[in-house]
């Protein structure tokens, strides 16, 4: 038995077991396994593991689907949302250097704004897991929501349009903030990813955008003329977080928050 010219890597062993290996390399791997008993044993164990998983869980797929999962029961009247009209200007803006724009905010953040961000992340963690009652007022009542929150927080709240980022407004709620009531808006993507925007009067007049992370959540926060903003979302894709925060920033700035 001749050795393959190129040694077989562990990744290739996995790919071999999972049928992801290019056909022309399969022969090499088989030759390798014939002369490397430890690797052959690993491959055998991985296959046995897959069989055991099927043996344990395939029966679940054969069970009759419970009544509560019937689609007719789950379907609700669809809310009409217009998507797909992506503002070309905004898209072009987002494609530009958001990274550089973030990087130059390096002076130290006032600690009160950090405490503010901490509250916002807490609210994010608390409400993002809610399936049935994530908000007090639904996004379908946008005008009412904005009017109500504006009245309570004491400045104009206009829920940003984040359709271009694939996010629609779930709705909002009022929360206690560190200095004054806070407005809390939740957005959601078709994949179930949720982002929240927390805004309230802040002690800090104006700052650059900064980043904070906690557990698996990330937040970008800034303040603008005495109003603080915290955009929180999943921390596993920072570009995405930045993209959304940038869209929020651009719109709140325009509205003179």
């Amino acid at each position, binding site marked *: 038995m001749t050795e393959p010219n190129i040694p077989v890597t562990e*990744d290739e062993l*996995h790919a071999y077991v999972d049928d992801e290996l290019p056909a022309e390399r399969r022969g090499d791997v088989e030759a390798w396994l014939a002369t490397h008993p430890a690797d052959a044993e690993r491959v055998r164990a991985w296959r046995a593991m897959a069989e055991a998983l099927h043996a344990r*869980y*395939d029966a679940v797929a054969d069970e009759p689907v419970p009544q509560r999962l019937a689609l007719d029961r789950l379907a609700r009247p669809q809310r009409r949302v217009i998507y797909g009209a992506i503002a070309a200007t905004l898209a072009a803006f987002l494609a530009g250097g958001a990274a550089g724009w973030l990087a130059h905010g390096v002076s130290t953040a006032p600690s009160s704004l950090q405490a503010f961000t901490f509250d916002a992340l807490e609210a994010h963690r608390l409400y993002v897991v809610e399936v049935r009652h994530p908000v007090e007022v639904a996004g379908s009542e946008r005008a009412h929501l904005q009017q109500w929150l504006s009245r309570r927080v004491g400045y104009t709240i206009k829920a940003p349009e984040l359709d271009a980022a694939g996010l629609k407004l779930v709705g909002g709620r009022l929360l206690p903030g560190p200095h004054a009531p806070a407005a809390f808006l939740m957005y959601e993507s078709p994949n179930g990813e949720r982002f929240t925007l927390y805004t309230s009067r802040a002690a800090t007049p104006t700052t650059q955008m900064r980043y904070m992370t906690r557990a698996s959540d990330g937040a970008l926060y800034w303040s603008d003329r005495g109003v603080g903003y915290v955009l929180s979302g999943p921390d596993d894709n920072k570009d995405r977080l930045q993209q959304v925060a940038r869209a929020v920033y651009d719109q709140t700035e325009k509205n003179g928050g």
Partner: protein
Amino acid sequence: MNTFRDSVEAMIPALRRYARALTRDVDVADDLVQDALVRALRSERLFVGGDLRSWLYTILTNLNRNRRRSLARKPLFAPLPDSAAGASGTEAEACDIARALATLVEDQRAVLLLVTLEGLSYREIAEIQGVPIGTVMSRLARARSHMRAALDGERPTLRRIK
């Protein structure tokens, strides 16, 4: 009639299997599937082609991440292992597999199940988890190596911890 809904419906058994293995709890798993289906139906008009199967697994994966985050805040509600010790024969082997799965961290468990149980490609899983393929490969390698250790040599250790 409604091809979108039919395609979603055809996926329910596989989604239930994946959710059950992921959570190892019948009720939690079906809650998860239910939430995923509600979201999928709600987002029907946002789904513009592409792979429906991957999309559904993506929704379920995100929902499970949210769920686990809420569990972390309420440790009292952590799910119990779905089988008692002391079973015998094939039942015992099945318990071992479930218990070994429980020792994996979430992302590794998801990769292992999506590859071996659901038969998704590495590329599809990379998209579902929003990570590069290299990360999927290393999660898979770690998952298999931990599982093997849990199944082979470390049964007494596991029992003692329990």
